[in-house]
């Protein structure tokens, strides 16, 4: 029973964070047909940004907001630095954008390491300071307001982004750019701005995942790779380009890894193996994901 509740709590919270990061992958993929390999590192930027600000004495709520905004800027910067030059020149063996977005991520993480430090940090819970430090015990498992806030905030964000994509001018512009960039430009869409905005939004989502999850999971440099890859698996599983798919994929990956952690005798070592296996199976069986429909991939 304890195990089961533990798995559920972990799935709900970690899954929410993964869903947010996955949504970032999806947004960028929708707009450009590429995958932003700097998405994981942006999570690191957001987490360490909030930590550095709060260490400098900024109130935690303000620090988190600033970190999210700052990471949005960093996301936009990734697009400007990594992607824009590619439009002018022949890509490197057709995968130049993988190289450059990944390189931008490396640079971001190294800047964080040099600018802040490389040790793991915890952030005080966002809501703990506002709602008080309640802890409920469910079958012996501690559930905090933070856990609930993560889930609620994630659901709200995903629904909000989904609605934005479906109903607003920005959403229409994004879908138009995704469909045919040149045609979108012809009918007056500022394609450059739409794409940059998608990258910025993806960065903001990654930072939100980082600050929401930080009270539960340490902010670490490795998270860029660890959570970044898991979120990528979630995005692919759910279907790149689908907001609801990102949500479903996030929870599925988190559930699998929570179960793997629980059943493996030696602690958390099999977690990643399970996720990796899921990834390979997804790619082999249904590369477009559960809810994805876009078959074409840029290559």
């Amino acid at each position: 029973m304890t195990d089961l509740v533990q798995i559920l709590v972990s799935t709900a919270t970690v899954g929410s964070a993964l869903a947010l990061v996955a949504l970032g992958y999806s947004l960028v993929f929708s707009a450009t047909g590429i995958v932003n390999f700097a998405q994981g590192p942006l999570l690191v930027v957001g987490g360490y940004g909030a930590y550095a600000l709060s260490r400098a004495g900024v109130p935690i709520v303000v620090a988190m907001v600033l970190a999210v905004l700052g990471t949005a800027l960093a996301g936009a910067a990734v697009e400007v630095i990594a992607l824009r030059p590619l439009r002018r020149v022949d890509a490197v063996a057709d995968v130049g954008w993988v190289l450059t977005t990944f390189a931008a991520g490396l640079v971001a993480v190294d800047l964080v390491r040099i600018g802040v430090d490389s040790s793991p940090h915890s952030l005080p819970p966002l809501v703990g300071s506002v709602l008080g430090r309640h802890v409920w015990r469910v079958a012996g498992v501690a559930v905090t307001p933070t856990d609930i806030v993560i889930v609620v905030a994630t659901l709200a964000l995903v629904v909000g982004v989904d609605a934005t994509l479906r109903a607003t001018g920005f959403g229409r512009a994004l879908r138009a750019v995704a469909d045919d960039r040149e045609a979108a430009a012809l009918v007056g869409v500022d394609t450059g701005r739409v794409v940059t905005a998608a990258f910025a939004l993806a960065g903001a989502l990654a930072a939100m995942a980082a600050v929401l999850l930080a009270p539960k999971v340490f902010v670490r440099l490795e998270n860029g790779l660890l959570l970044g890859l898991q979120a990528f698996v979630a995005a692919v599983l759910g279907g790149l380009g689908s907001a609801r798919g990102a949500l479903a994929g996030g929870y599925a990956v988190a559930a699998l890894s929570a179960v793997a952690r629980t059943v493996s005798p030696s602690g958390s070592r099999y977690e990643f193996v399970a996720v990796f296996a899921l990834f390979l199976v997804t790619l082999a069986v249904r590369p477009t994901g559960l809810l994805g429909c876009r078959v074409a991939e840029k290559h």
Partner: protein
Amino acid sequence: MADRAQALAVRWWPLAALVGFMLWLGPSQAGNRKWLDLGVEAMILATAATGLNVALGSTGLLSLGHAGFFVAGGYAGAVLGPYLLGDGSIAPDFVVRNAPWFGPVFAVVVGAGLGTALALACCHLRGFHLTAVTLAFGFGVPAVAVLAADQLGGLAGRTVERIPDTRNAFLARGHTLAGVYYTSAVFLLVALWLARNLSRSRSGRALTAVRDGEVAARTSGIDPYRHRVAAFAMSAAVVAVAGWLSALRTLSVSSGSALDVQTESFRYVITVTVGGVGTLAGPVVGAFLLTFGLGLDVFQQHLRDKLGLVFGGLALAVVALAPSGLVGAARRLPGRRCPARATLVSRSVPERADPADQSGETPGRPPARPTLVGRSVPEGAGPTDQRGPADRPRTDPGTVLLSVRGVTRSFGGVAALDGLDVDVVQGSVHALIGPNGSGKSTFVNVVTGVERPAGGRVLLAGADITDVAAHRRAALGVARTFQGVRVWHRMGVLENVLAGGHVRGRAGLGRCLLGLDRAEESRLRARASELLALVGLETRAGDRAGDLTLAEQRRLELARALAAEPALLLLDEPLAGLDEAERDRLVRLVRSLRSGGLTVVLVEHHVETVLALADTVTVVHQGVKLAEGPPALVAGDALVQEAYLGPASGGGGA
């Protein structure tokens, strides 16, 4: 003679410079551990980068997990090998005595094995999916090191035994830094030699063709999946050997953290990118620059611990400023004698182009093709015999070569082919005409295996090939050109034709790597030059295919298709974009091919040409056959006129 000497100098000076540098650095810095060690590091990195380049440059697979193979190679060569060959081993005495020197064998086996396993799982993918899988693989390597901490030593790794200096006077030198230096140099040269052989061979061309255009590769008889897996495995094996060398150098093996593996993997990628993706010299140039550059005192002080920043920044800068790398940029300098070469593929100088040679070549030609079509086509019947089309007998004119029965195929509810029946007679030119969207291109795709029909059968010389993969159909004698031209842009013109003749060569990967394919290669080259002459592109043999005009690219596609010596050639709108002179030229060519016994399916809009050229015309409309018969009859058909001109104007307003 002077020209020849100069050509040799142009071709070999980079290698001469490398060997010269290595021979200078070794003795001159014998007492300076730092520079000698940097030399070793540079050569190890160059070896790894050369390995990576096989995947990245030749095949377009971007791996960010190759450091995993490096670590695995280190463990296999320096830990597993000595363990298995240690005391009590059943291996022959000679092997046991020199056990450490069999390290590279273990590294190659483990590296290739792991690479194959990973490739089998992900080489059906392209682009970012594959990269993500390799990232995940790199991530898993430290996890394995922790899981098997007793044997592998966890993240910190373990020390390995030096190569003992007592057992063999010569090999014993290996335990010194100088010994490691020269060992690394030898392995780097071997890696370069293999890469060079590969780039000039049938297998290497197939890899590049897969990278530059998978559909055209498949219809030329190249299996993309198999070639990707092979490239990935080779690449992993070479990187694994570099890992073994590194174990010799540091006397330790460790994976480091997941971030370390990632950074190290990226180091190989950036090394190749800085030097020049897909070039032979690129990885070496990149490795020496990066290693010696970072080895300078000023960098040692400030940048040694900022590798992410350095490598990431370099990658961004190179892609933005010189995406073809330093070697690529150098080739574009004004005044260079050699035109730019975008791929590994060597400059195409036909080695033996004099006709006397070719006439004597028939005995060297592969024995009767083991194909379905081979039975109905006499030995030697191939478009190569254009010099004397008259003496080539038509085979059983009247036999049906291609039979398409009730084929259906639809796209999103719209039927492109709706139960189409077509029989193409051996040795005829069979034209398929119809309005846009009538399903003609889908027909070609279904016959060549590019698309699978939803229903119906495709028979070639009576055998059902409906379920045969596109690349196998090419081997059975089916070749095609494309409506939207699909030459391999970054390969040379001659290389395009050579790769088109893939199914006519037999050199396997091993022979290609060891350079044992030269006889076959010169035969293929002679034939390819002949085909280029046939389509009038002989003067462009050394150019990049992407630099040709559209009309020239169409001719190149034709030569490429003929290189496969097909029995059935499908031309998908070959006249689009050609002017009148070029049209006439093509018509003459198709006629001469037919008189040589080739069966041609011609999909075309240009009615005049069709009427002039075709023996039989099938009119397709909305996926069904509207009319069929000799051109003159079909042209007068009211239904046909209606389909083309609309009901109101057809047949005088009926």
